[in-house]
């Protein structure tokens, strides 16, 4: 540790004013504060010291994402082995998925952080740490077969149009990772939906087992087919809960996501109010549609809706993004509940967009400031009323 400290101190003068590379100061600072706790202290006013600064918060989220990511890597291999009829061990499956998913992760981080560094240099800002989480979220919401250059384009779009135009980290209206996914969804629809993109190897169509279908549960329901898993049996609630079904990299396993959710709630980083109300909203809307019935999508039991597609992933990791979510307590309940309701509405009533969760969260991101505004207004009105009553009482 000491040797690193000494090295950092040695090269520091190069980046300060009058040094050789003053224009790289923000880059240097980003790496220095990544390695060491900054030694700058607030000079005046009262302030609270807490170990949870931005970087630690971000790391907590990244750790919470690890179970889902690990599962996604294994599932990548497992689905491929089912599709091509290959026998593999657990580790081989994991390794197969790892080899496909790791490059996507690398591209997402290199391109995203590169863009952030460039903007920080141009604007003479410090490099913000917001991308640490977006960088792992973006690969997790993509199909495993997404070409790497598309990942790069979407990442640049999300960072520049989703974040930097609004003023950088903390100023964005929309969740950057979902912006990237929405961009890909509308720009390259054939790579983001359909029956072939979810499992590695299907695009080329080589040696597929007879009668095999790579469609996701929602894709099958949209065309009124019974839900089958990749081995051709009826898809059970257990399949959905464990996540041994086709889907985007990180979204399939409800249990892995719940482990992350528990960790987020325990550390206080993710808002349990939002997570809970998204599930409540989804369940309520699902139940309502179950009562009507009519087609395969409407007849999916409401509790299965919560485990299919990106619902759980969106509820736990996307809706809780502290920047784009509602800030007030009451607002969080409304915000979350509406995400749940809208996600199921879009998913069921508009089969062209089976991935309603993404659109629902983006839509509510836009409305979050409005919800906050009215929550605060209502609060002020209530307090004013109380104040008036008490002054009246005094005057009598």
């Amino acid at each position, binding site marked *: 540790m000491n040797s690193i400290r000494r090295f950092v101190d040695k090269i520091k003068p190069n980046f300060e004013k009058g040094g050789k590379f003053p224009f790289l100061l923000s880059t240097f600072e980003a790496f220095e504060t990544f390695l060491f706790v900054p030694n700058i202290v607030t000079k005046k006013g009262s302030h609270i010291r807490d170990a949870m600064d931005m970087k630690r918060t971000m790391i907590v989220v990244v750790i919470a994402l690890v179970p889902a990511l690990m599962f996604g890597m294994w599932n990548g291999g497992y689905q491929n082995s089912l599709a091509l009829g290959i026998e593999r061990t657990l580790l081989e499956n994991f390794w197969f998925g790892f080899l496909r998913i790791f490059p996507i992760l690398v591209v997402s981080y290199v391109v995203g952080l590169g863009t952030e560094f460039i903007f920080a240099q141009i604007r003479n800002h410090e490099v913000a740490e917001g991308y640490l989480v977006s960088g792992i979220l973006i690969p997790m919401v993509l199909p495993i077969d997404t*070409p790497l*250059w*598309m990942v790069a*384009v979407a990442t640049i779009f999300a960072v520049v*149009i989703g974040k930097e*135009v609004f003023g950088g980290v903390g100023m964005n209206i929309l969740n950057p990772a979902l912006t990237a996914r929405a*961009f890909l969804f*509308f*720009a*390259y*629809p*054939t*790579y983001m939906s359909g029956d072939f993109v979810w499992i590695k190897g299907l695009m080329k169509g080589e040696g597929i087992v007879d009668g095999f279908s790579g469609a996701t549960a929602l894709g099958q329901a949209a065309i009124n087919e019974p839900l089958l898993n990749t081995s051709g049996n009826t898809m059970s609630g257990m399949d959905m809960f464990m996540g041994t079904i086709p889907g985007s990299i990180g979204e399939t396993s409800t249990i892995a996501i719940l482990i992350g959710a528990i960790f987020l709630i325990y550390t206080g980083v993710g808002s349990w109010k939002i997570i809970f109300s998204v599930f409540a909203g989804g369940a309520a809307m699902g139940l309502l549609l179950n009562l009507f019935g009519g087609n395969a999508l409407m007849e999916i039991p409401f509790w299965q809706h919560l485990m299919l597609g990106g619902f759980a992933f969106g509820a736990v990791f996307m809706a809780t993004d502290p920047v784009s979510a509602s800030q007030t307590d009451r607002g969080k309940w409304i915000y979350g509940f509406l995400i749940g309701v809208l996600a199921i509405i879009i998913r069921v009533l508009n089969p062209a967009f089976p991935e309603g969760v993404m659109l629902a969260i983006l839509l509510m991101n836009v409305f979050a400031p409005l919800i906050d505004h009215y929550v605060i207004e209502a609060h002020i009105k209530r307090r004013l009323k109380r104040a008036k009553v008490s002054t009246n009482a005094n005057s009598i």
Partner: protein
Amino acid sequence: MSEREPLFSSKNMKLLRDPLNDSNPITVQVLGICSALAVTVKLENSVVMTMSVIAVMAVSNVVISLLRKTIPPRIRIIVQLTIIATMVILVDEILQAFAYEVSKQLSVFVGLIITNCIIMGRLEAFALANKPWPAFLDGIGNAAGYGVIMIIVAFFRELLGSGTIWGFPVFEKIGLYDVGYVNNGMMILPPMALITVGIIIWVQRSRNKELIEDN
């Protein structure tokens, strides 16, 4: 009587030049956005659209300027509309006669030039109070300022969305599809036109700091 102003005095040239940059109708005044979103999928369409707007705008500016002393103020809007509508119908007929394919693609948007906020705006703000020649230059300038943005947006939308420029398959010829490139379907959708216009505004304002509003 004061001395006659030369035809291309610096004041007159300013009328022509300003709308191209510092008071661009689309990026600075944010007028005429609707058609900028609708007809910029292809370069050809937006060039034709630009020419139509230039024609309508120049002529109606001049006509209104000639009539400016005889139009009663209370009915000026309807008079302006009548003149613009006449011009638009003329342009539409000419397009249908000589460029039928393009006019079919532009469809309703030629007719909608009537509602283009830039035209009404310039008639109200400029032609009603100025002589015909400056009004003519102002019309050409504003329509060209509109056209420049239209053409820039259309260039990028056609190139990235369909891989062509003026119908010529550029990306196919340089073999980009063979290495796995795919056209960006979002470029064809209207939201991307809005984002492209936004990026142009961003670039323009970072080059010219005077355009940035304080708030």
